[in-house]
């Protein structure tokens, strides 16, 4: 957005130059600068057009059409959008995906906060580097492998059941750990927590130590410092991490397929089904656009909240 505004400003300054009678040489220099600016603007503009505007236009074009047996029929109908809100299961699955996304965001934040807190205030430089690495390293392993690993932990023959059986707590394996919403949320939270850690940590890093020292000097307890200084300052980080983990959880389709139960279908599974087996691209496009709209709304809201809570020093 700021890039796009620059040429306009340049035009304005040229106009100013003309009216105030600045030498033709300086005007020429301005023109060259403007041409150069346009040249550097071209790649991002082209990227934006080819990878954003064009695909979204195609998506919109498809969403207005329909499929008759084997052929796509272009059209100008909003029927697909109406169907998303009036026919089962689209809206309810979207809401369920949102619910799982929210659970994922909350669980990730709860796991991430103490870790980020430790990293920011208590860890020595050496340990910090080490823990930081531990947060990042799981990303080198494939998503699928990590999701499968949870099967071996939560399954009837898995680690938890084997331990409980061994301790004599239960006499037959429990099935309540795997293939349900709990295992989906747990897997998603496990996989996406690093995002929350990094975004909360980045925000906690900004808490000035001088502020804490002053508070300590004035006799504030540690709890008071956390409640009145650290937590308020870290809120934008929690919101940013929450938006990221929510979006990733909401749009996930692997976890429900691998560790989900009979009713753990999510919206991305439906979109895949519509694109493949059902051969209903218009409907898939309509759902895609609605999700994009929801995403834009969420980001705008988060942006506003972040601004509201942002503390400037």
């Amino acid at each position, binding site marked *: 957005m700021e890039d796009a505004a620059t040429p306009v400003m340049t035009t304005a300054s040229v106009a100013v130059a003309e009216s105030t009678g600045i030498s033709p040489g300086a005007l020429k220099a301005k023109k060259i600068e403007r041409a150069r600016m346009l040249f550097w603007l071209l790649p991002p503009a082209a990227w934006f057009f080819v990878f954003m505007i064009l695909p979204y236009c195609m998506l919109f074009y498809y969403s207005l*059409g329909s499929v008759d047996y084997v052929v796509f029929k272009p059209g100008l109908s909003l029927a697909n959008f109406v169907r998303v809100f009036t026919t089962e299961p689209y809206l309810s699955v979207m809401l369920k995906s949102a619910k799982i996304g929210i659970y994922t965001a909350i669980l990730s934040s709860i796991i991430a906060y103490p870790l980020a807190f430790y990293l920011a205030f208590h860890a020595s430089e050496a340990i910090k580097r080490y823990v930081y690495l531990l947060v990042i390293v799981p990303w080198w392993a494939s998503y699928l492998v990590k999701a499968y690993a949870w099967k071996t932990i939560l399954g009837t023959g898995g680690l938890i059941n084997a331990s409980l059986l061994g301790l004599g707590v239960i006499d037959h394996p429990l099935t309540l750990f795997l293939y349900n919403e709990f295992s989906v949320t747990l897997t998603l939270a496990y996989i996406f927590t690093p995002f929350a850690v990094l975004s909360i940590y980045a925000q906690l890093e900004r808490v000035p130590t001088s502020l804490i020292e002053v508070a300590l000097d004035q006799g504030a307890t540690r709890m008071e410092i956390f409640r009145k200084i650290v937590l308020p300052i870290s809120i934008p980080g929690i919101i940013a991490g929450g938006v990221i983990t929510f979006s990733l959880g909401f749009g996930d389709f692997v976890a429900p397929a691998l560790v989900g139960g009979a009713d753990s279908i999510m919206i991305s599974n439906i979109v895949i089904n519509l694109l493949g087996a059902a051969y209903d691209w218009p409907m898939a496009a309509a759902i895609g656009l609605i999700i994009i709209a929801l995403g834009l709304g969420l980001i705008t809201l988060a942006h506003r909240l972040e601004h509201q809570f942002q503390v400037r020093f």
Partner: protein
Amino acid sequence: MPEGRRVSQRESNSGIRGGLVRRLSQALGAVTALSLFGASAASADSLNMLVWEGYADASFVEPFKKESGCDVSAVYVGTNDEIFAKLMAGGGTYDLVTPSNDTTMKLIDAGLVDPIDAGKISAEPDFFPMLKSPPWLSKDGKTYGVPYAWGIIRIVVDAAAVAEPPTSLAFLWDPKYAGKFAMWDDIETLYEAARYLDIKNVYDMNDEELAKVKEALLKLKPNIRKYWTTAGEMTTLLQGKEVIGGNAWEETLVKMRGADHKLIDVVPKEGRGGWSDSWMIAKGASSNVCVYKWLNYVSSAKAQALGHAITGFGYSNSKMVDFLPDDQKKSFEELGMTNPETLKTVSWWQPVKQRAKYLEIWNQVKAAQ
């Protein structure tokens, strides 16, 4: 073959080509065709196929190349839609495709394939009677494909979990098996509920019948722990005793043979679904001299036995089994796949006009709490 038999998560990159997009791709295709003109003229003795993995394996392609002098290049597909979409987009580059029986009529109706001259297939008399001009390949008295691999969707249950082998699909609905079954995440499971309800044509149900099927599937749901997507997943679920049964492919039965808990291959009175893939000639490719040489070759019992070693599927030539090593032969016979009577009881897949509606109901069932 059932979609997803390959790496399950692989998705079709097929698309629906709208007017503008189609014109664009046609224009691109024309340019490509022009630039490749020299090359294609030089390699007249070659075959391009769009097939499932395992349908052009080197073990039987290499002997063919030597014998016929034809070069073979194969592109693998992940879903039937991919075959359809590629031919729809003006697939002048492919000579042969191998769609399943729920897609073949779509290709025929769209005029994308040539009729077959069965007289040119010397092994055709040896085909199972059921697979000579089957309904999913016949239109206006012409046959549009040569049947190849096939399989039956099995109903399996742990022998220890039932008093005696079930004879009907009804046991799947028994409330005492709450959370004990895994069913295939595919509309075949919807067909099975329809067969259980004794609906005549499960591939062309009206809205009223579909509503009943949905109700039956919702009643079945408490018994379902997991909807599986690959044969490997179903095998793992059974091996880990996460579930005691459900529907499965032959692969699961074969792999579970060595397990300590025995699996019953249920033959329900309602029948079982079956898939069958066919070689089809892309429009205009009949003139390629290699096409019939290949169709003749892959229809032979010997070549199909080599194919079976790779895929484990049933094949159209009834004499294929004579060329199998003893262990494979025994396993194949145990599955009843050498018996023409088995094929007669199979409810062979057909194209479903209301496929999108079927799938919507299937998604509704999966989404229900």
